[in-house]
């Protein structure tokens, strides 16, 4: 198995390693101290944050002087875990829906109704639903508590993907149940439960794996798009140093990657490397998942052809 899909397992172990490192490192090491300035006697050189990459700060620091490498490692677990939870919940619910309401999903009026998910992007749907609850100004308080915020966000993020996914699964099931062996089994008197369990599910499994990979990448992109509008998973912290509201600073509660990208976005024209560090990390994560999915897809296709 391992030798047949080497890229998938490389990516899988890499993800596990990042996850483990992200959980262990913050427990083992405390966050490196913020140096307000650097000064060396011999060179008489004075330096203030943001520092560029050096021996002490592997990826440099941001404008306050926080070590970017530490922040990235700490934030990785939130990004991966949130995306994982949302993806798996979506798949689970939509498999149940797709199998039970197969006929409803395949009826033409319902699929026309679901079409609205094909023309209105998920990010906009989530923003439309959540903006009355979660958007607030500097001087106001959030209406919801942190746990309520998290619950509502997860609920909406899961719900927005369930219907289109359910349709894909219902279509696949319909296609599989038209095959000869299913019709044979039906004529011989197999119950619909048995047909689903014995004939349809074994063929649905590999497709589900590929779907999980695609969904994972989509959820990550969705999280990034939401973060641009300061809708971070877990809530937002708004601070301002000025008397007027022009320079509000929006930061996520955790060091979650999409939140970092959004918070550092205003550095794009000033110190590009600060924002490019989390952007590159995020891009590599998405790339890794896409490569894993493609490898898996290719493997299943080859297996299907060889049969």
């Amino acid at each position, binding site marked *: 198995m391992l030798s047949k899909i080497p890229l998938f397992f490389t990516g899988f172990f890499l993800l596990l390693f990042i996850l483990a490192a992200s959980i262990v490192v913050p427990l083992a090491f405390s966050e490196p101290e913020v140096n307000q300035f650097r000064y060396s006697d011999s060179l008489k050189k004075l330096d203030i944050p943001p520092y560029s990459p050096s021996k002490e700060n592997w990826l440099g620091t941001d404008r306050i002087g926080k070590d970017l490498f530490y922040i990235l490692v700490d934030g990785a677990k939130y990004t991966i875990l949130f995306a994982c939870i949302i993806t798996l919940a979506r798949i689970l619910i939509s498999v149940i829906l797709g199998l039970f309401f197969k006929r409803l999903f395949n009826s033409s009026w319902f699929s026309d109704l679901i079409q609205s998910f094909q023309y209105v992007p998920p990010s906009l749907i989530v923003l439309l639903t959540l903006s009355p609850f979660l958007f607030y100004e500097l001087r106001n308080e959030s209406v919801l508590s942190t746990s309520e915020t998290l619950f509502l966000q997860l609920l909406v993020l899961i719900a927005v993907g369930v219907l289109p996914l359910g349709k894909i699964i219902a279509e696949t099931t319909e296609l599989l149940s038209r095959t000869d062996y299913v019709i044979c089994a039906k004529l011989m008197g197999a119950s619909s439960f048995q047909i689903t369990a014995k004939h349809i599910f074994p063929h649905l499994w590999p497709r589900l794996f590929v779907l999980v990979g695609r969904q994972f990448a989509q959820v990550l992109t969705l999280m990034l798009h939401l973060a641009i509008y300061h809708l971070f998973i877990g809530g937002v912290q708004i601070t301002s140093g000025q008397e007027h509201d022009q320079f509000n600073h929006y930061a996520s509660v955790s060091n979650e990657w999409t939140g970092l990208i959004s918070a550092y976005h205003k550095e*794009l024209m000033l110190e590009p490397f600060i924002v490019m560090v989390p952007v590159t990390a995020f891009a590599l994560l998405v790339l890794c998942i896409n490569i894993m999915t493609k490898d898996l897809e290719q493997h299943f296709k080859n297996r299907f052809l060889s049969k």
Partner: protein
Amino acid sequence: MKKLFVLMRPYLLLSIGVVLLSATPSLFAGENNLKFSLFRYGQTVIETIVQLTKPHSLTLYTQTQTLAFPTMPENRSVEFLDQITERPLFPEVWGIVIYTAGLIIASFTIAIIMAIVLGWMTELLPSIFKKVLLKCCSLLESMPDLFFVFCIQLFVVWIYKQTGWLAANPFTSSKEPALLIPLATLSIVPGIYLFRMMLLLSETEVDKDYITFARSKGISKSAIILKHRLSNTISELSTHFPIIMLLLFSQMVVLEYLFNMNGVIQILLSEQPYETKAMLLLLIVTPLFAAVKGLQKVIFKRRNIHVE
């Protein structure tokens, strides 16, 4: 009459779906906390549909925040006063809707044309190039779209810093709206996607009989590609148009913030009545739907003639 109904039915159902989506906040909104209620949701949806039938009564809220100083003898604290003014939605909103929808449709066209021209050109190249290009494309396609946006913005500003020549303004200012760079960034990702699809699809076309037949008649390679393979690939490609539209629209949502554009999304996300939000969403979705369906129809019609 019946034909018209059949033609309009997907659109009607789509609009109902859009209304259902735009009313979702009322599913959760209680007085002061979260409260799930399907009944209130139904009420809101029906109210919204009733309001939508009277488009001239729709209104647009504008929030303004003014800084107020109390009279001098007291301490000099500032106060922020929130004000909401209500204006009729039309004709105020037409320009904004046309700007957003126009950008999406223009980049849709650019992406398709770019993919077709590039696809035709790569067909003429040796097959090693094609393989390398395919690998590059699938690599680029896996990148998140914001990566391209940041790179392009940085690149334009870098050129400006180096040479003093501003290719196009990278942000909307109060004087002129950003046009060229949003267009370029919007059409890059779908362009790559379509281009890769072109190459993949035309690969499956090669082995088909009509190509062999045409070649045996002595038709030149470029003519076969241009006349036969390309037109067949395009009709295969048209099944991917809805995905491209979705990709474009979801990028537009982000770009509007990043380029500071005065588009529809910022109105949709501010505090507005449900019927206004539904109306705006419909105004954006309608041209996109029409473009996809119309283009598909044209392509399929041409293909049918070819088959006969």
